[in-house]
């Protein structure tokens, strides 16, 4: 019983690099302030919560910028927490995405009377989990970050307590999410057993030894399957359409962009820094996931009548494109990471933009049906142009951002110069064409179909926060397409540091 005593006496607090954890600490502080505001001022504080959350998120960008300006890779806890280029780019993306989600939520949550303080508090803690995930190079850290971003998201999905659809959204998301994370944990326990350590660098060493084959293979498969749920890859996507439809639309935007990106962040770190040498195990798995997601997502999206469900299946298909470079990562290494990060960043801009339009249009039509977009050109021509921009960008039409994202993925896949890579590129090309059908269907409805006779045709008034969100996302979508160096400046080169 006393055998642990000597090791406790010898305990030394590990050095903490305060600058490296400053973004997380700032975000934690902002979340605490937002919660305190509610406790102290009660109802009077409500009007300021969303502004506080938004400003707090922008303040969190400051330490990220100062870290980027220094440009050195920082490590803590023996390599369990790393701040490198990869971490900084994705942390900045998560913060900006969260800021736009706050902009989308402001009117929706205030007018719907949906417990504002708790909403923003939970949103901020989910963002904290994502920001932490970008630095996590250790199984325990990855697990804690994953749960920190998932648990608030389960609550947010079920936010409309009295609405049966929202209950159902929360329940399905919760059950699938918890089941997936339990399976992922079982895989992690096997990997831990193999390496005797939870750091990805040690796991990489143990896996390259090549012994304990079944344990290694099972561990890798379980962990990847667990994250395939998070990124809604086929066949683990079944929760996505129902959860997206039932959850409040700003929460859906958050899940579709930030939560999916967090899953890819974890996958990239695990595969690149941890599973490295075992490409014989994970590459075929990613090939199947990528092809299945692209194809199944597209085919299901073709027959959707609800715009949010269409976006859910389009998200499954887009996840397939993001998974594609992972299927050839053994041959091209860094470049696969760059391609996925490029795609994730551009996808965030265009998908958030599309959700901003959906939220704005629903303020008038109070409907999610694609047919309710008929006659949009009559009362909101500007919105109509912006929505077409996002739809064609998602389809990958030049010169919009989505085109460059697809180009980056095709380049990476072809560069691998293997039969797997070429077959993947061919399937992806066919799928890009199929995708155009359903994106163009929305555009046709807006531009050419007449509105129902009894429709209110007065010009649609867009609140300033939604206008700001629309402007930011549209500008980013255009900029990334017309001037790709704006994004390759951040995503090219060795993003994930393997300094240990």
């Amino acid at each position: 019983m006393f055998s642990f005593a000597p090791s406790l006496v010898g305990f030394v607090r590990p050095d903490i690099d305060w600058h490296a954890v400053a973004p997380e600490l700032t975000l934690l502080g902002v979340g605490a302030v937002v919660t305190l505001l509610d406790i102290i001022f009660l109802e009077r504080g409500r009007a300021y919560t969303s502004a506080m959350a938004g400003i707090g998120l922008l303040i969190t960008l400051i330490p990220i910028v100062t870290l980027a300006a220094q440009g050195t890779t920082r490590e803590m806890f023996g390599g369990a927490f790393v701040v490198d280029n990869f971490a900084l780019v994705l942390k900045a993306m998560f913060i900006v995405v969260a800021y736009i989600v706050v902009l989308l939520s402001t009117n929706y949550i205030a007018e719907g009377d949906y417990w504002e303080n708790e909403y923003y508090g939970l949103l901020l803690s989910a963002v904290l989990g994502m920001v932490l995930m970008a630095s996590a190079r250790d199984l325990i850290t990855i697990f804690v970050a994953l749960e920190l971003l998932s648990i608030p998201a389960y609550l947010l999905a079920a936010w409309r307590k009295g609405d049966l659809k929202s209950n159902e959204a929360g329940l399905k998301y919760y059950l699938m999410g918890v089941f997936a994370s339990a399976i992922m944990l079982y895989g992690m326990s096997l990997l831990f057993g193999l390496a005797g350590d939870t750091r990805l660098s040690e796991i990489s060493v143990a896996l390259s030894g090549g012994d304990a084959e079944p344990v290694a293979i099972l561990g890798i498969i379980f962990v990847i399957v667990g994250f395939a749920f998070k990124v809604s890859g086929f066949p683990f996507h079944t929760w996505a359409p129902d959860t997206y439809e039932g959850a409040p639309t700003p929460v859906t935007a958050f899940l579709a962009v930030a939560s999916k990106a967090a899953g890819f962040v974890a996958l990239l770190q695990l595969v690149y820094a941890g599973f490295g040498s075992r490409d014989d195990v994970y590459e075929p798995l990613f090939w199947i996931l990528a092809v299945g997601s692209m194809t199944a997502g597209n085919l299901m999206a073709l027959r959707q009548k609800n715009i949010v469900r269409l976006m859910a299946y389009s998200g499954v298909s887009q996840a397939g494109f993001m998974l594609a470079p992972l299927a050839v990562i053994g041959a091209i290494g860094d470049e696969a990471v760059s391609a996925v990060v490029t795609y994730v960043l551009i996808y965030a801009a265009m998908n958030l933009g599309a959700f901003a339009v959906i939220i704005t249009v629903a303020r008038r039509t109070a409907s999610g049906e694609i047919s309710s977009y008929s006659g949009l050109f009559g009362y909101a021509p500007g919105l109509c142009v912006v929505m077409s921009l996002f739809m064609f960008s998602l389809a990958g039409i030049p010169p919009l951002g989505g085109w460059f994202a697809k180009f980056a993925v095709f380049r990476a896949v072809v560069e691998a110069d293997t039969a797997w890579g070429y077959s993947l590129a061919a399937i992806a090309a066919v799928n890009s064409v199929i995708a155009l059908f359903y994106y163009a269907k929305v555009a046709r409805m807006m531009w050419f179909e007449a509105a129902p006779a009894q429709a209110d045709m007065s010009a649609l008034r867009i609140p300033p926060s939604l206008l700001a969100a629309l402007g930011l996302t549209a500008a980013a979508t255009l900029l990334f397409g017309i001037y790709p160096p704006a994004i390759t400046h951040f995503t090219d080169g060795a993003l994930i540091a393997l300094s240990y």
Partner: protein
Amino acid sequence: MYLNTMLLLAAVLFCIGVYGVLARRNGVLVLMSIELILNAVNINLVAFGAFHATVVGQIFALFVITVAAAEVGIGLAIVLLLYRNRRSINLDQVDLMRG
């Protein structure tokens, strides 16, 4: 130290848990099945930790226990919400949205 015995126990628990999640239609029983999987993970972690003579396994298991408690708290809240609105926790009846 019989590592294999522990791993076998954990594997059996894991399989029972997965079966429970897939076959049970009662919300609370599904939550309990998920707990079984998480306990299989804990047994694995502690057994491997002892095998490698490191405390990291036990620390990981403590994190899993803590987070599982939080998860079940949320899960029961959602199941309770469902019961309030529908008077039933049968998961098969939760199918308003399809396609």
